[in-house]
C-alpha cells in the first residue's frame, strides 16, 4: 500500500477499499524495515499520525489529502514537534507555531509521518553536512541521496512516505529528486508562502513538492501554493488547478529550448545521452526543439556562492544563545556567549558559509564581491528572459552526473559547489523548474530538468507529464525494496 501514489490511494480511500489507518501503518512498517539502512528521518510522529488516521476513518478529518501520509523537511516549523534543521544549535527547539504550509496540509487532511534529515540549515548537496546523521541513497546505500532535502527524497524513494516537501535554494529539491529517482519541483519564487520555513538565503529559498509522480506533484502544489500576508514576498497571483495541466501528449507546437551550456563539458556521457533521448521523445510528440545559449550561466556558481552565503550570514545571526536553541556553558559576558554558542552549535559547512558571507559583505569587499554578484545575477536573469522570448520551457539534465559516493566530495567544498551548475541559475532567476526521473545508469537514477517562465508551472507540468507517461521511469524502484 505504501508503494502507491497519493492519487491512487485517494481513489481507494474514496471507494472505501482501504482505511487511512491501514495506509499509515503500512508506511510505518516500511520505516521499521528500511530506516536503519536509509536514515531518512530525524523525528517520527507515529502516535499523532495514527490518531489523525483514525479521525479520517471516522469521517472527522476531511479534505483533498485526507489520510495521505507526508514527510516534512526538518527546516519547516511544526508546532509542538521538534524542528532541528539538522543542527546542534537547534537540537531542542520546539516551535510555538506552524509554518503556513503545515497549516495548509493540516487543513487538507494530510498526515505528517515525521521530519526528514537535511544538510545543516539546508547548506549542502549530500546530507553529509547534517549535524545529526547522513542519509543514504535507497538505490545504492554507499551513495548520497543528494541534498539538502536528501531525507525527503530518500523517504519517498524508499516508500517510507507517500508525499514529501522540501526546500530549494540552489537545487535542494531537484538534485536529490534526481539522485533518488523521484519527482521534485521548485515553484516560482513567491508562489508558496515561506512563513515558518527557517531562512537560509531569503532571495532564493522556495518550498516545493517531492513525489512519486507528476500527478502527485500537481495535487500537492494545489494545496500549498498561494499568497499569504505573513510572507510579504509571496505573490498575489491566482493559483490555477494544476491537475488540469496533466494531459499527456498535449505539447504540439510548444517550443522547448535545450540549454547548450548544460549539455557540454562536465556532463557525464550517459547522462547526456539520456537527455538527448528525452529530447527526441518530446520532439516525436510534436514539440519544436531549439538549441539555446545562455552565455552567463558559467558564472552562476560563483555568483550564487557569494549571494547565498551573504544572505545566510545575516539570517543566521539570530542563533546567539538568547531566545532558543543551544547556549554555551562558557558565558562570562555577552560576546563570549555568542561566540562560544555559535562555535559549539554550528557544523563546518555552516561556519564556512557564514565566514564567506561575512567577508563578502564586509567593508572594503562589498562592491567587489556582493554587489558584483548582484550585477552578474542581472545578466543571468536577462539570459533566461532572452531564451524565453523564443521558448516556452527550457531543458537540461538536473545534474551533470548520477549520485556520488558518501565521502567522495566531503573534503572538497568547491567541487561539491560546482556540481550544482544546472540547478543554481534557476534560483538566481527566480524561475520554476521540475526534475523528473529519466533513465537509470548503473543502477542509479538521473533526472531531467524542465524550467518554465515565472508563474508558469502549468506548462512545466504538461511537458513533464507527457515525458513521464511515455517512458515510465517513475515506476522503477530501488533494488533493496
Amino acid at each position: 500500500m505504501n508503494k502507491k501514489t497519493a492519487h491512487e490511494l485517494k481513489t481507494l480511500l474514496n471507494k472505501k477499499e482501504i482505511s487511512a489507518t491501514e495506509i499509515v501503518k503500512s508506511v510505518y512498517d516500511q520505516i521499521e524495515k528500511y530506516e536503519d539502512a536509509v536514515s531518512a528521518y530525524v523525528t517520527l510522529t507515529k502516535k499523532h499520525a495514527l490518531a489523525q488516521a483514525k479521525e479520517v476513518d471516522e469521517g472527522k478529518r476531511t479534505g483533498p489529502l485526507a489520510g495521505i501520509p507526508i514527510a516534512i523537511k526538518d527546516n519547516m516549523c511544526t508546532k509542538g514537534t521538534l524542528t532541528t534543521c539538522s543542527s546542534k544549535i537547534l537540537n531542542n527547539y520546539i516551535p510555538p507555531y506552524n509554518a503556513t504550509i503545515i497549516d495548509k496540509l493540516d487543513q487538507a487532511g494530510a498526515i505528517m509521518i515525521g521530519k526528514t534529515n537535511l544538510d545543516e540549515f539546508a547548506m549542502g548537496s549530500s546530507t553529509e553536512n547534517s549535524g545529526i546523521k547522513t542519509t543514504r541513497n535507497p538505490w545504492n546505500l554507499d551513495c548520497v541521496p543528494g541534498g539538502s532535502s536528501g531525507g525527503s527524497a530518500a523517504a519517498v524513494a524508499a516508500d517510507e512516505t507517500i508525499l514529501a516537501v522540501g526546500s530549494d535554494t540552489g537545487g535542494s529539491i531537484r538534485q536529490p529528486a534526481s539522485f533518488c529517482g523521484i519527482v521534485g519541483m521548485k515553484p516560482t519564487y513567491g508562489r508558496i508562502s515561506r512563513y515558518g520555513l527557517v531562512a537560509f538565503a531569503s532571495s532564493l529559498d522556495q518550498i516545493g513538492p517531492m513525489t512519486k509522480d507528476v500527478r502527485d506533484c500537481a495535487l500537492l502544489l494545489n494545496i500549498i501554493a498561494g499568497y499569504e500576508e505573513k510572507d510579504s514576498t509571496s505573490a498575489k497571483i491566482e493559483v490555477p488547478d494544476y491537475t488540469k495541466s496533466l494531459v499527456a501528449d498535449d505539447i504540439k507546437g510548444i517550443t522547448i529550448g535545450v540549454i547548450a551550456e548544460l549539455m557540454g563539458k562536465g556532463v557525464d556521457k550517459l547522462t547526456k545521452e539520456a537527455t538527448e533521448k528525452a529530447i527526441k521523445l518530446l520532439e516525436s510528440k510534436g514539440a519544436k526543439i531549439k538549441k539555446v545559449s545562455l552565455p552567463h550561466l558559467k558564472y552562476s556558481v560563483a555568483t550564487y556562492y557569494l549571494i547565498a552565503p551573504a544572505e545566510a550570514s545575516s539570517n543566521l545571526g539570530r542563533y546567539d544563545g538568547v531566545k532558543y536553541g543551544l547556549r554555551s556553558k562558557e558565558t562570562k559576558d555577552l560576546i563570549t556567549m555568542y561566540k562560544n554558542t555559535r562555535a559549539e552549535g554550528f557544523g563546518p559547512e555552516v561556519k564556512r558559509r557564514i565566514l564567506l558571507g561575512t567577508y563578502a559583505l564586509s567593508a572594503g569587499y562589498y562592491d567587489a564581491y556582493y554587489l558584483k554578484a548582484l550585477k552578474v545575477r542581472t545578466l543571468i536573469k536577462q539570459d533566461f528572459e532572452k531564451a524565453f522570448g523564443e521558448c516556452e520551457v527550457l531543458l537540461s539534465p538536473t545534474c551533470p552526473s548520477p549520485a556520488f559516493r558518501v565521502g567522495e566530495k566531503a573534503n572538497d567544498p568547491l567541487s561539491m559547489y560546482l556540481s550544482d551548475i544546472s540547478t543554481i541559475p534557476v534560483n538566481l532567476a527566480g524561475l520554476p523548474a521540475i526534475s523528473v526521473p529519466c533513465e537509470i545508469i548503473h543502477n542509479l537514477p538521473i533526472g531531467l530538468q524542465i524550467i518554465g517562465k515565472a508563474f508558469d508551472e502549468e506548462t512545466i507540468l504538461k511537458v513533464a507529464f507527457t515525458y513521464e507517461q511515455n517512458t515510465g521511469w517513475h515506476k522503477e524502484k530501488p533494488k533493496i525494496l
Partner: protein
Amino acid sequence: MKINIDQVANLARLNLTEEEKKLFGEQLSNVLDHAEELQKLNTDNVKPTSHAIPMKNILREDKVVPCKNTKDILKNAPEEEDNMFKVPRIIEE
C-alpha cells in the same frame, strides 16, 4: 587571495580553533579565487538584482494583536526569569 580570518571570524561572532582557522582560511581562499572570474565581466552599466521577481515595499496596517503563546515561546529559552529572556550581565558594575 589571502583573507584575515581572525577579523572575519570576529565579525561573524564565531570562535575558531587554530585548525579551523587554517582549514577555513584555505578553503575560503579557493572559493574566492574561483569568484575572481566574475571580475572579467564588464558590469559598468548593469543594475544589481536583489530579488528575481520585481517587488516594491509591501505594507500592512500596523495593528496590535495579543501574543497568546508567551509560555511556549519561553519554553525554548536557555534561561528565563519573570517572563523574560535572561542573558549574562551586559553593563559592568
